[in-house]
């Protein structure tokens, strides 16, 4: 471990992510009962982490520019080809600000979950995953190298997968979790490629090193890496066209949604773009893409939020829309505006989600059409919701007003007036759906007679968030200064414009929803928009038709190809070989062996012949000679009688024969 000496020694800031991570590691191997009982452990870890974060903020006050660390630490991760690769963590003003925000939101969500999840027998596991999620986010904001950032980015992906799919026995959470993971991972392919390209270009993953060399990168490399990073952020921050996972992610427990939407996960994309701004600003095309994506997404989310009937879905689409704002702010090069809105949004969106959780518990439904008149039965809930929702709409003096105003201002100053018009339109739509929701849920006919106010464990955290939403706006200047910018209050013109925009939408909402007018005629007029909005602008249809189903088809087809053609070829070769062996076998048996057998047969025939000859002829001769000589012997034996006269006669006879023969021979000679 090597320290890069700075004025401050802030090693203990590393404990901020390490504490919740340790809580996760300790609780993970425990039995379910122990885990359930030890829910306070992650909360305690987060409380200490919050204390450390605030201490860090005090230490680094009055802050400095984004990307100028007060303290950093690097480790050697590996050597590649003899070249050392390091990873590092760095504490800069941006990181400290985010630490405080994440800790506050995290603790509020955790405390809220104590009551909210009390009847679930896997609540300990829920707290475990939340702790890991928070640890990953806290580490993410502290990371000083792109590789660490990517690693923790992926861990957050897994945590969101686990939280969304928490109730894994049901179909919807399972599908939603898988969708969330795969869609964000589609974006991560871009991150992967960008990381590889960046490392290939400058041999390091350290932000400092990347920013120092970026001026020398080739335009192609700059393009590949910035497009890759933008694509990654589009996936993580649910921008068009990868935004369809976020509304489905509502299938998870509500506190989990609050965490994903407010403090972790989706803001990671925005945060990463903020960090990489020195690279992105060198590429005007990339900046333009970011701005376009941001504005379109903001419009997309806001329009769809107006059409939702599910309370949590309204919030989900509003998150998409607000993230679009932040991305647009980055698109015009303003990190401060994006980060400021990110912070205020984190507080009021967490507040809205948790309050929605209280409402859902009280009314046992998420459908707003079955809610109404809750203001009288749940006064505190109504007040905190109002604070959060009005902040979202941008009502002075709530925090959302200030941060949205700053985004309006930077977009206006960029000179891209079409973008400003888009942002303003989003402002109108935002206050429209805020007002719609507000009237539908809290006023009008009282549908939920049994609804009751939330418990203290639920109301305390939301009240803390409400208080922050109230005061945060007044921190515009200090926060900007903390991030190294000369902040200024919104100009009067801009404030007037944005208030006018807000009032426009509010008036529209009031006329329609407070008076409870039928929206049928409106729906008929805007028929095309309504049917498109019902289908969520066909985004899911596009995924399904052009990617998911073709992929299923492709995989089946390739498998068939594998089995029939490739393996078929192998088996075919084997079959041919066996055929060949049979043929050769036949050849062998009939012809070669036939010849051999024929030769053998011939040989046998020959031997038989020889044997016959042997036994009949030769043996015959031999035997014949024997027989002859025996016969002669037998015949001659009779001659030997022992009678002299007979011998005499024989001799005389023989002599006569001999003489006669001699005479005959001589005569003929």
């Amino acid at each position, binding site marked *: 471990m090597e320290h890069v000496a700075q004025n401050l020694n802030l090693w203990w800031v590393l404990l901020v992510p390490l504490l919740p991570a340790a809580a996760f590691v300790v609780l993970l191997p425990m039995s379910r009962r122990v885990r359930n009982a030890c829910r306070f452990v992650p909360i305690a870890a987060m409380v200490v982490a919050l204390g450390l974060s605030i201490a860090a903020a005090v230490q680094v006050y009055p802050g400095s520019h984004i990307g100028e660390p007060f303290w950093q630490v690097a480790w050697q991760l*590996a050597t590649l080809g003899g070249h050392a690769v390091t990873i590092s963590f760095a504490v800069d003003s941006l990181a400290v600000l985010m630490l405080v925000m994440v800790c506050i939101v995290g603790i509020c969500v955790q405390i809220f979950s104590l009551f909210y999840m009390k009847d679930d027998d896997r609540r300990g596991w829920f707290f475990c995953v939340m702790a890991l999620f928070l640890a990953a986010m806290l580490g993410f904001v502290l990371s000083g190298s792109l590789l660490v950032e990517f690693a923790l980015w992926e861990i957050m992906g897994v945590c969101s997968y686990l939280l969304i799919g928490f109730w894994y*026995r049901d179909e919807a959470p399972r599908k939603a979790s898988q969708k969330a993971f795969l869609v964000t991972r589609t974006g991560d392919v871009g991150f992967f490629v960008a990381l590889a390209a960046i490392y290939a270009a400058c041999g390091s993953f350290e932000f400092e090193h990347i920013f120092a060399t970026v001026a020398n990168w080739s335009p192609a490399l700059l393009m590949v890496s910035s497009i890759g990073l933008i694509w990654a952020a589009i996936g993580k921050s649910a921008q068009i066209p990868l935004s369809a996972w976020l509304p489905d992610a509502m299938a998870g427990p509500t506190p989990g949604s609050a965490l994903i939407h407010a403090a972790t996960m989706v803001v990671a994309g925005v945060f990463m773009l903020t960090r990489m701004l020195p690279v992105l600003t060198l590429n005007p095309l990339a900046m333009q893409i970011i701005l376009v994506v941001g504005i379109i997404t903001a419009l997309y989310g806001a329009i769809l939020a107006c059409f939702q009937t599910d309370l949590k879905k309204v919030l989900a689409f509003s998150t998409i829309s607000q993230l679009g704002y932040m991305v647009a702010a980055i698109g015009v090069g303003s990190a401060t505006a994006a980060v400021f809105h990110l912070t205020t949004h984190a507080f009021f969106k967490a507040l809205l989600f948790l309050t929605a959780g209280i409402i859902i518990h009280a009314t046992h439904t998420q459908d707003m059409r079955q809610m109404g008149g809750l203001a009288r039965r749940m006064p505190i809930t109504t007040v905190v919701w109002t604070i959060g929702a009005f902040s979202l709409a941008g009502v002075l003096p709530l925090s959302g007003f200030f941060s949205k105003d700053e985004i309006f201002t930077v977009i206006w100053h960029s000179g891209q007036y079409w973008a400003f018009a888009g942002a303003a339109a989003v402002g109108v739509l935002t206050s429209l759906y805020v007002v719609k929701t507000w009237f539908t849920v809290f006023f009008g006919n009282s549908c939920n007679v049994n609804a009751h106010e939330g418990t203290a464990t639920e109301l305390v955290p939301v009240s803390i968030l409400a208080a922050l939403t109230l005061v945060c706006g007044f921190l515009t200047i200090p926060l900007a200064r903390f991030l190294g910018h000369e902040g200024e209050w919104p100009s009067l013109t801009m404030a007037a414009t944005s208030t006018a925009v807000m009032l426009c939408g509010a008036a529209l909402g009031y006329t329609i929803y407070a008076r409870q007018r039928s929206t049928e005629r409106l729906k008929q007029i805007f028929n095309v928009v309504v049917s498109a909005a019902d289908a969520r602008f066909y985004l899911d249809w596009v995924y399904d038709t052009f990617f998911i189903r073709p992929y299923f088809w492709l995989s089946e087809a390739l498998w068939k190809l594998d089995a029939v053609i*490739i393996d078929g070829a192998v088996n075919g070769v084997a079959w041919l070989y066996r055929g060949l062996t049979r043929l050769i076998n036949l050849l062998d048996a009939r012809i070669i062996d036939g010849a051999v057998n024929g030769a053998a047969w011939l040989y046998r025939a020959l031997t038989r012949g020889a044997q016959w000859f042997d036994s009949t002829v030769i043996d015959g001769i031999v035997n014949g000679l024997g027989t002859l000589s025996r016969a002669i012997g037998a015949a001659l034996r009779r001659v030997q009688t022992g009678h002299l006269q007979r011998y005499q006669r024989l001799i005389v006879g023989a002599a006569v024969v001999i003489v006669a023969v001699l005479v005959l021979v001589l005569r003929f000679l």
Partner: protein
Amino acid sequence: MLLTIIIALPLLGVLISALLPHRAESGAKWVALLVTGADFVLAAWQLVQRGITGTTGMQLETSLSWIPQLSVHYHIGVDGLSLPLLVLSTLLCFLAVLASWKITVKPRFYFAMLCLLSLGLNGVFTALDLVLFYVFWEVVLVPMYFLISQWGGERRQYASIKFFLYTFFGSVFMLVAIVALYLYTGSFDLTQLRDLIAQTAALKGAGIGSIQWWLFGAFFLGFAVKVPIWPLHTWLPDAHVEAPTAGSVLLAGIMLKMGTYGFLRISVPLLPQGFSGWQLILGILAVISIVYGAVVAFAQKDVKKLVAYSSVSHMGFAMLGIAAGTAEGFNAAMAVNISHGLCTGMLFLLVGMVYERTHTRQIKDLSGIAAQMPVYAGIFCFASFASMGLPLLSGFVGEFLTMVGSWKSPALPGIITVIAGLGILCGGAYMLWLMQRMIFGNPTPAVEGQPDITLREILCVVPLAALVLVIGLSWNTLLQFTDPFAAALVKILGA
């Protein structure tokens, strides 16, 4: 000497378990456990020792004349490339024995074969003489053939013969190349061949069509079947599916690595000029393997087959790293080797445990395991995430370095890296879909009432899981061994 002990120790296991009397046949598993365990301890001890000294080059060398007429030597040694693989091999053999605890059919034969397999594997990763290498290479085939054909599934005869013949087909070409190299240089010695080849005039000349290129091609066929590279992969799903659990673990976990090891040990360093002519072909085949394996895995209905096809995809990353010809790429190939051995070993062990309980491998029959066997489900998810290449786990190291290496490589176009990135996405798709269908949901009748993972079973997977975490968190744990080798290899290619 120590290496010889590591190689020969399993032979003791083979002999003892084969000679056990019929009455004591259940003792065979204890013999095998002891032998493979001792082997692992010795190898791991060497790894730790070497890690401390951190030198490059061959170590623990032994060289004895074996067939002097042909200058064949019993020459063994290890370096940063082979030592991690040797440790992985001994570890997986040990765990394979542990996972086979319930084998009751012909246990003496079974455990003798496992020990013989261990011997062959240890030999392959230590041999420094091409003839010796070839002998060990073929020795490995025999016990695996018996493991599949005697203790395998329904189509075991088909699978075992296919496995044997297919790999044998490849190794014949390798033998031809070995003989050719001998005829050119008069040596089989891996440590000397590089210089001898560089000095041989006939072997000069680079690019497609040169003699080096043809020799590389012959080695390629031998190794590519083993890796396996598309389209030479179809023996693998059959062999994996039909093999008993231990067989699948060793097949995927370590035997596939013999192929990539062959490239890194033999063909790339010995034939650098031939390699340059093959880089693009290798890169394209590798990236096809990556995407193709992942896409086909998605369509599988048998969980073992799914993991088998995922191996094709993962080994494609190792091949892409090799094809890149950069330091990052070579490191990546070795990291994938180790990590895939760990992750896939874990997955096959886990699948085997469920198969033992339910006697089915059909994914549709295995639903809702999380509700019935929560600990098992947690470990399975961990293994799946590791296999997906999630950061902080070992799979990421290899996949990520492959991307970096192939992007940096002058021989490969950038589009290959992008497609490999899509392969990572496809990898997530099949694994997540497997988890959704098999782990989550409501329990099926087959899963209902099954007991959770036992202590022995946990012991089988915990060492692998621990290594997955350690390597993923601290890359240097592994790369300190492989990087000196990778740097040296890059230097050879540059020369």
